[in-house]
């Protein structure tokens, strides 16, 4: 069973809802960052929602994904709970990683979401490995790696694709070509016209699709998934999209103009899909308003949940290094306990 069936109108409405949810989550995260409530780096997904939602809709709950530093959209599309995501961004114990990961490392292994990743290009080898598990266990599951256009210049992604292609692993490599790696345009980082040409070297199918069109992304991933579970190996998909915000929050963006952004906003993936649904008579304006209100309320609640959640205590810094704890770390943890700086372990 795919996560969302985009063949029926309920599924299409759900896809729209998730795109709205991502946008609301990320614009709220941007505000919280500006207010100083979120430490560290935050990379927002606004503008690229059709890629995550179109792709994850075509996956099964049991399928794996690996994500990137720009991972909030992938999480929401895969069905993670915005409350625990927001709690993680705020460094709270109730966050997905108990506050140890933050924006760049949100993960939910139980939901087969193998983590956002702070290292550009590190996800594809992990996805190849998860696909190897699927093949090894002879299960109808796949692993999909999201990666940026910048990541296509990383050696390890090519090793991963070659491995997956050679072993016919049930993997999908989905490049989010948002036309920049940090501040450097894609043309200055690659010598090919379309990044999907990469596929040719590995003798696997490669497509470039419109990443502002949720249906196009969905169909491409659906095909790729079919191929993968049929034992025919991986597919390489490039989705052309655009990020509206800076590379990270606070990016002065000297590499582009406001007009550049506005040009892409004309083709906004949420507006375009909404219009389609309205034109088809599947969605009334009033229903759209309800949907928006519902999404806003959900994110508001997520923020409230995150704000009220407990901070971790200093002792927790010593947890989770190993499955089988080591005396070295116990010793450091004991030192903290005996000098009384620790909070109440709960």
């Amino acid at each position, binding site marked *: 069973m795919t996560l969302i069936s985009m063949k029926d109108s309920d599924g299409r409405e759900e896809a729209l809802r998730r795109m709205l949810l991502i946008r609301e989550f990320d614009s709220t995260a941007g505000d919280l960052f500006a207010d100083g409530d979120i430490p560290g780096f935050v990379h927002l997904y606004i503008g690229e929602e059709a890629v995550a939602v179109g792709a994850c809709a075509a996956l099964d709950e049991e399928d794996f994904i690996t994500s990137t530093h720009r991972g909030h959209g992938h999480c929401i599309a895969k069905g993670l709970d915005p409350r625990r995501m927001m709690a993680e961004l705020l460094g709270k114990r109730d966050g997905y990683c108990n506050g140890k990961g933050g924006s760049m490392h949100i993960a939910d292994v139980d939901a087969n979401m193998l983590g956002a990743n702070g290292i550009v290009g590190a996800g594809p080898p992990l996805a190849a490995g998860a696909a190897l598990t699927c093949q090894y266990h002879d299960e109808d599951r796949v692993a999909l790696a999201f990666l940026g256009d910048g990541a296509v210049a990383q*050696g390890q992604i090519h090793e991963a694709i070659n491995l997956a292609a050679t072993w016919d692993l049930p993997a999908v490599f989905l490049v989010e070509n948002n036309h920049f790696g940090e501040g450097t345009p894609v043309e200055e980082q690659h010598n090919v016209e379309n990044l999907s040409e990469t596929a040719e070297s590995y003798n696997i199918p490669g497509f470039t699709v419109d990443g502002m069109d949720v249906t196009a992304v969905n169909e491409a991933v659906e095909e790729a998934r079919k191929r993968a579970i049929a034992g025919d190996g991986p597919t390489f998909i490039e989705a052309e999209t655009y990020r509206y915000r800076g590379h990270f929050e606070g990016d002065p963006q000297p590499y582009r103009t406001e007009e550049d952004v506005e040009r892409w906003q004309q083709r906004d993936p949420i507006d375009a899909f909404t219009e389609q649904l309205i034109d088809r008579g599947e969605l009334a304006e009033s229903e759209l308003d309800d949907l928006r209100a519902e999404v806003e309320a959900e994110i508001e609640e997520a923020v409230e949940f995150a704000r009220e959640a407990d901070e971790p205590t200093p002792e927790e810094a010593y947890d989770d290094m190993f499955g089988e704890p080591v005396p070295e770390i116990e010793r450091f943890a004991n030192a903290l306990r005996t000098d009384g700086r620790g909070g109440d372990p709960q």
Partner: protein
Amino acid sequence: MSTQPDTPSADSTESMTVREAIRAALREEMDRDEDVFVMGEDVGNYGGVFEVTDGLYEEYGDERVRDTPISEAGFVGAGVGAAASGTRPVVEVMFSDFLGVAGEQIMNQMAKMRYMFGGKAEMPITVRTTEGGGMGAASQHSGTPHTWFAHFPGLKAVTPGTPKAAKGLLKSAIRSNDPVFFFENKLMYEQDGEVPTDPSYTAPIGEAAVEREGSDVTVVATQRLVGESLSVADDLAGEVDVEVVDLRSLYPLDTETLADSIRKTGRMVIADESPVSYGVHAEVVSRMVEDEFFSLDAPLQRVGVPDTHVPFSTPLEDEVVPDGDDVRSAIHQVV
């Protein structure tokens, strides 16, 4: 930690080489758990460049003894992804000098995933790799970089010094849900010794083994230098009573067994083939100084590679790769 014996006590044994002991551990663990599989360059049909996996491909097939392309970043990374998603890979990296090629997946994925995810990822991966000079393989195939991995948070690192330790530690490594680096010294593959045959025998990670009791000086040795130190101890018998401890586990490190020993002898030589500065030696020294300062009767001594790479030509290589003579001189410095 050190009070627990290896499990179960090694009643029935068989003489085998380190190579055979490692192979036996792989075989037993593959029999015990279907999720255990081996992958690496030429580990399959070829049997491994040091013939460690010889015969396993025929027995277990190409899915469980899997040849990889020459892509250390790719297949170590795939091992990490496989471990996080429900299998138990044993990844062979032909020479430890190549670990840097997979550095990113080791440092930022394998070592950090469990912690970054708040404890919600398991990482049951074992990395087997070879170390050490002495075969004229020159600098890029003779290094002993195990300190890096013992130092890096989130990894465990073991260095067996006997065939028995090789079998017991590899089995523990494979069963562990933590990433464990298993460092095989290349010159030890032919070394033989008694090895427990009971498939439930394991050597716990984090426990040193006293290989020879003595009262005058403790030699804490690793890998090949365990055997060399035992020979030196035999030679010196009657003159100096040498205790030899196989450190076995670099991280976690068995401070207790070392402390017990130094309380008895008051003197210690640390012999490990890694470069001397900033290494395993220094860690042992620190712990002894922190915990057993008032038990020390003489300056502690380090034996290792003198901070050079391992050169090709035999006279040059002999100069820098430590051996029993270096251990003997160090002992004479302190007794």
